């Protein structure tokens, strides 16, 4: 997939509590969650973001809670993908599993400012800063993870793997 949008850049250790504060965790409705994305980090974010925009951040993006509401809120707010120097592991898994493209690339983070126009090719991992004309290459995913992404997330991957609607019999004995 190719995405194009504006960069919104933040610092390190952006935690899932500021991505979606617990006061909104009494719902799992993506639309509702999207209205409050990043609220405690930047209360203006949802007003600034346009569909297709990118989040850009330093190290350890998505640290803290396991709430999948975090990538759900980010995606529902219109963000097409997240580029960071590193991701906290549960956020990383959740994003892959629910289909929010994420890219790890330190050089790109250093080479992008808030407001820059960015083009991302999730297949090749190429990140181009259209404002400066510089292109970066994200760390590629292992094949197995690429498989999940290509199937559109873990649930679809599982359906393909086990053949819906039934898993092979005898699984209870494991």
């Amino acid at each position: 997939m190719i995405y194009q949008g504006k960069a919104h850049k933040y610092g390190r250790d952006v935690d899932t509590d500021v991505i979606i504060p617990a006061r909104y965790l009494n719902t799992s409705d993506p639309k509702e969650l999207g209205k409050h994305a990043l609220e405690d980090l930047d209360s203006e974010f949802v007003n600034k973001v346009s569909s297709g925009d990118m989040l850009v951040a330093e190290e350890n993006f998505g640290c803290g809670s396991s709430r999948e509401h975090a990538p759900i809120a980010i995606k529902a707010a219109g963000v097409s993908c997240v580029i960071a120097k590193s991701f906290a592991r549960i956020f990383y898994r959740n994003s892959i599993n629910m289909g929010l493209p994420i890219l790890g690339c330190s050089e790109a983070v250093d080479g992008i400012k808030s407001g820059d126009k960015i083009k991302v090719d999730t297949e090749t991992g190429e990140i181009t800063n259209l404002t400066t004309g510089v292109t970066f290459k994200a760390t590629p995913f292992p094949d197995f993870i690429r498989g999940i992404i290509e199937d559109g997330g873990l649930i679809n991957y599982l359906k393909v793997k086990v053949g819906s609607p039934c898993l092979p019999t005898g699984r209870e004995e494991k």
Partner: protein
Amino acid sequence: MGMTITEKILAVHAGKEKVKPGELININLDLVLGNDVTAPIAIREFKKIGVGKVFNVDKVALVPDHYTPNKDIKSAEQAKIMRDFAKEQEITNYFEIGRMGIEHALLPELGLVLPGDAIIGADSHTCTYGALGAFSTGVGSTDLAAGMATGEVWLKVPSTIKFVYKGKLNKWVSGKDLILYTIGKIGVDGALYKSMEFTGEAISSLSMEGRLTMANMAIEAGGKNGIIEPDETTLEYVRGRAKRDFKIYKSDNDAEYERVYEYDVSGIEPQVAFPHLPSNTRGISEVGDIKIDQVVIGSCTNGRIEDLRVAAKILKGQKVCKNVRLIVIPATQKIYKQVVDEGLMDIFIDAEAAVSTPTCGPCLGGHMGVLAEGERALATTNRNFVGRMGHPKSEVYLCNPAVAAASAILGRIVSPDEIVGSG
């Protein structure tokens, strides 16, 4: 080359002789866990897979603990999704209000998680069970859905960082202080994707409660799991609780570690993590004059009986400062009853503390003690991120139960020595 305890457990559950860090594997799970926040999304995803039934009704645990007893209609609807699913699927380990507890205190207490197990839970503090010598890690809702359907999860085998704690613990220093100190040293991503193995004489001398607190906060350093080799303390805890066989694994002498940190605990005093990261730690003697509005003693980190006994010892015969609200939350119904039976309830009530039914409540700013703008809390919980306990302009400081109790009495963050004397 040998294997670490984490590698051994992962190898067995993957049906392999050996695994190496970096390898992608699929493992069979002994238990998958969800709560009232994460399970509703998992149930939605589970239904899309189309398997109909969970892989094993005895190996799924569902615990309503975050917003329960429910704080509003929306949270009641979420809890109901999980309750209905548990009934429909005939889940054995669903625990209703009155029988529940904070998940990470409840499951070890009931013997549902045991040494050698492989466990995932849709809650980041699922790493707690590593204290029993199990591999246990937090995941999100989609992984929980897949886990409930297949009894499996994909993982990358983590490399292991070994932490060796030498020497004897100082007075008032607990597992909470060791883990806060460690996070302060290595940072909130100091163990990102890694296994954290806690060893050394100070760990051997720790109670099960102290060990559970340490493993609980491995995630605050970014760790995939925290783990402690089972010993006599572990076996004593597990005996009488376990209703099935379990297996003890230990790291080989020639196991490979990515890094080894050694700490002399005799130099460690009670720790306080300042806003807004658990790594922002200082020794209690370097805290300065920090006034507080609220104190919370509880959570999956420090709501166990040993924590409440320490707090009661300090609060006995004292009154909570008139400018402070003290909220005490026993983590399970069993602990709540122990608090009553041991006379701790009288001490808390006489000290003018509020004692709550088990809930995660204020730890995540859910309910039962949410902070207003500009307010400051001292808590025995695990996170002090911006807005964690309420208003984005409120503050949370983290500490052990002794420091929390003493500070509630004086209205500012203090050493317990200021209340009970240093003798």
